[in-house]
């Protein structure tokens, strides 16, 4: 009689644990998706800003074809990126290319003084901050979700229901384009 009761209580507790862990994992996945679309929102804002920036720079520094092309190429690669990894790589490329483009403002005093350029600079730097925070939030959510999958015994529940670890928003060092800034 006692043994049966003990077994029943044990099974109920295990079932409750499985239920709560499953829900944590499912909610975790939804949050990761939300965080990823949060990054996409910020990336899109930067993509939309680029034509304006290129136009302004062209008006004052027509000869910087190389830099302008880098930016355009990086922008297209970001627009075509699909997986998280591709987005991370393209994002780094575009960041770097834009930094060089802004830096040439030093060589062209007219460009540097133009109000349009100044506004764009401020917008860009704000969007870079927003992208950084959006990435951080995404990575925090991935970290929380992956931790549940790695911890014992919730890892068992995770594998039973087929939950897989998600990837962080990052790119390897070698793939980040080294952009030289020349004066």
């Amino acid at each position, binding site marked *: 009689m006692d043994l049966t009761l003990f077994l029943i209580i044990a099974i109920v507790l295990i079932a409750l644990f499985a239920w709560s862990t499953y829900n944590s994992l499912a909610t975790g996945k939804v949050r990761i998706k939300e965080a990823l679309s949060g990054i996409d929102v910020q990336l899109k804002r930067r993509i939309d800003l680029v034509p304006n920036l290129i136009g302004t720079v062209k008006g004052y520094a027509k000869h910087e074809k190389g830099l302008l092309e880098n930016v355009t190429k990086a922008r297209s690669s970001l627009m075509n990126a699909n997986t998280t990894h591709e987005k991370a790589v393209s994002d780094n490329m575009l960041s770097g290319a834009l930094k060089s483009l802004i830096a040439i403002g030093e060589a062209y005093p007219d460009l540097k003084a133009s109000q349009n350029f100044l506004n764009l600079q401020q917008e860009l730097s*704000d969007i870079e901050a*927003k992208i950084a*925070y959006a990435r951080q*939030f995404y990575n925090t959510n991935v970290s929380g979700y992956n931790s549940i999958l790695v911890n014992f015994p919730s890892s068992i529940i995770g594998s039973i229901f087929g939950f897989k670890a998600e990837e962080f928003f990052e790119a390897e060092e070698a793939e980040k384009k080294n952009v030289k800034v020349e004066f």
Partner: protein
Amino acid sequence: MNIYSQISANKRKTWVVMVLFIAFITTILFVYGKASGYGYAYAGIGLIISGIMVFSSYYYSDRMVLGMSKAKQIQKKDHPELYRTVENLCIGAGIPLPKIYIIDDSAPNAFATGRDPKHSVICVTTGILDKLNKIELEGVIAHELSHIRNYDIRLMGIVTILVGLVALLADFFTRSLWYGNRHREENNNAQGIFLVIGVILAVLSPIIATLIQLAISRKREFLADASGSLLTRYPEGLASALEKISKDKEPLEVANNATAHLYISNPFKGKIQGSWLAKLFNTHPPIEERIKILRSM
């Protein structure tokens, strides 16, 4: 201790204090019940009255506090740098943008209020905007947003209900003795002992409850420091801001006892140090300790 263990430690300590608080109230109810013979009727009435009072103040907390503090709401165009800082930190924290207010006072301070992230408010003084640099301001705002994200305002609302309940129970009990309405229970001796304990509790319990409330408040301040640092990934920002704020001796004019606990640093300046006993009555942990912990992360 690193940031993550700070956060778990503070959450654990909050739970421990809450459980002790509830055990404390249960003991009081038991003693009063035995002493007066009325049992749990007190508790029911007390909980309802206390609940209504605190719930309405908590529900309208943002409006009330702002009204008392003469704060003005700002939009992006009024103060783009402050707006952007709050906006970006909210992206990092994953909460919607709260309403942003400014108080025109040269004393540097800030607070956050609101019952949940969707109905929240963050407020800073012009003093803090003038005196802190960008990184320090980020540290302060991250701390305030962490209060919102950790539902600290809701927690303190519940704790205040419990403190109010304890005070009301003590009041009811003492009145019932005064007017001599006591059911005579069979076991008169036991009732007598409970009576004595009950009186002692009636006197001491409101103070004990307040001390527990202040202990919880201090733990949540540490938690907000740690959560905020996790958000900015730069604890030194907040540490340096706290240093600047503590050096400033000017008291915040619009703060009063009801709102003092919400601010990032105790708005009533002057030496709060001194005895161990005095420290128990502080809503905020001592600034030196907060800075020390931040710099060790």
